[in-house]
């Protein structure tokens, strides 16, 4: 009986400690999340309250049968795959450099932190300036090195080139976060494990493949999921670098949602688009949890 009471008191304390956090989060999130879902079944075309027609799943049908969504989805997918792959591959290399016993290591770590701490919008504005068609530093560098004959437009003419430039800017910024994450993972690998591999005659490549990589798997999985979710939601760097152009060639799903909702005032279409993104992200998260579960099972 007293045990029961004590457990009740502990639970009460736990809830009391959690209430402020719950208020701060769900007080803001819950109603809009539900409201957006409701809006997505109507045809709301102005920000003012009023009676709007119920259209059921029509907005979703329009999205899935329209070309604009699939084009934006392709851009989002390409951006996500290209940037996360590059960030993880380069981040792995960078993490090893961060862990290496080099001179001035504190300085090197300080330098690597810089892009991560730089605000995304500043990063976007910086690259937009570097890639400027008339006065940009990249054009100047390439022509002065005689790699290219004349100045060219990096962000303004070829949509695919522009999309790749956005990837470059994103990779420049986010590789350092990935590297620090992986460095944290590297430091949990016991040194004697690598030592043992070396004594067994494994070279650095083999040791990396057989010891480091498997031990890093949980960290890698976490970093991948985090980056993929962030890349899926990408908005600000595109807004500031290309504004979705040229010719809509860098429009991602979030950017399309923003345009539909706030420029075209198609709030319902926008809300439905947003929920399509939510479903995609939840699917990703489920896959991740699945992988984790399997890992736990294979470990225990």
């Amino acid at each position, binding site marked *: 009986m007293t045990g029961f009471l004590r457990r009740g008191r502990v*639970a009460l*304390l*736990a*809830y009391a400690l*959690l209430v*402020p*956090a*719950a208020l*701060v*989060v769900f*007080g*803001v*999130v819950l109603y*809009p*999340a539900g*409201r*957006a879902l409701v*809006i997505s079944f109507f045809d709301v075309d102005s920000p003012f309250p009023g009676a709007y027609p119920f259209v059921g799943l029509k907005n979703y049908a329009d999205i899935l049968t329209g070309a604009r969504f699939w084009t934006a989805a392709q851009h989002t997918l390409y951006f996500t795959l290209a940037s996360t792959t590059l960030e993880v591959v380069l981040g792995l*290399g960078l993490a*090893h*450099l961060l862990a*290496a*016993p*080099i*001179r001035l290591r504190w300085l*090197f770590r*300080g*330098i*690597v*932190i*810089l892009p991560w*701490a*730089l*605000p995304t*919008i*500043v990063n*976007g*504005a*910086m*690259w937009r*300036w570097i890639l400027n068609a008339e*006065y940009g*530093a990249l054009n100047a560098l390439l*022509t002065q090195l005689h790699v290219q004959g004349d*100045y060219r437009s990096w962000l303004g003419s070829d949509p695919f080139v522009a999309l790749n430039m956005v990837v470059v800017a994103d990779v*420049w910024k986010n590789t350092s976060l990935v590297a*620090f994450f992986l*460095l*944290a993972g590297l430091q*949990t690998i016991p040194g004697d494990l690598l030592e043992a591999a070396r004594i067994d005659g494994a070279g650095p490549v083999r040791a990396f493949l057989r010891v480091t990589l498997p031990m890093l798997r949980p960290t890698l999985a976490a970093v991948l999921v985090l980056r993929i979710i962030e890349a899926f*939601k990408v908005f*600000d760097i595109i807004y*500031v670098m290309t504004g979705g152009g040229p010719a809509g060639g860098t429009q991602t799903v979030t950017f399309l949602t923003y345009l539909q*909702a*706030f420029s075209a005032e198609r709030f319902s279409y*926008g*809300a439905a688009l*947003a929920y399509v993104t939510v479903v995609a*992200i939840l699917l990703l*998260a489920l896959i991740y949890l699945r992988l984790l579960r399997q890992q736990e099972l294979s470990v225990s």
Partner: protein
Amino acid sequence: MKKNRHVGAHIGALVASILILAPFAWLVITSIAGQTDLLARPLRWWPEHVTLSRYREIFSGAAGGVAAQFRSAMVNSLVVAAGTVLISVSVGIFGGYALARLRFPLRRVTLLSFLVTYMLPPIVLIIPLYLLMARFGLLDTKLGLVIVYCSLATPFALWTMNNFFGSLPVELEEAARVDGCSRLGALIRIILPLARPGIVATVLFVFLLCWDEFLYALIFTSTSDAKTIPVAIAEFTGRNAVDFGLIAAGGVLAAVPPVLLAVVLQRHLLSGLTAGALKA
């Protein structure tokens, strides 16, 4: 063999440093280069005219000008970030402790439901939130931004504090309770001081999150009353006749607080990530 590897690591670190520093260095050079230098072709890599006029303008330019808008945006960003850090880190500490140390029904579900909100893209919430904030007169106010940012940052603070408390030994707390401390007393007197590195890391992450946030600020603010630094910079970048040097100066100034914090708190950053990575 071993020596060669170290030489390789030094070269690798040097190359990486150059690749990281070069674009940022160009931003800094742009901010102090004369306008004719910026428009020169072929480009001069070090300007003939060096000027600090843009920084001077931002710090003391007349109200209403572009530079003054940068200044008020910096202040707004600082106020909003500070308010959010204060609220979300404190509620995150209490909630994180409960999740890490107390056994209660629906513990896992509670944690998961907080994390699910992190997966909701802001674009989902932004339309109804906009209408809601309009009704409560919170549009274009710093308070409105703090409220919204807390909902973004708190799940994150909960998660890192939960992981950090989980990595501390239980024995210390038990010893304190044997000595007659209540649970809350043990939390405040024993656990909090031990958890300082985790708290510092969380403060850093939440601060960067607020300083970086763009979409909500873009939609919810419209004047220098609440406009934050990312919105100000994006606006000037988007205009046609742009003063590249002034944008660069604004960008450099916007980078100073987060970069300084991150570099100074480097060690904590790493331990925060370790706690996160171990549990993830």
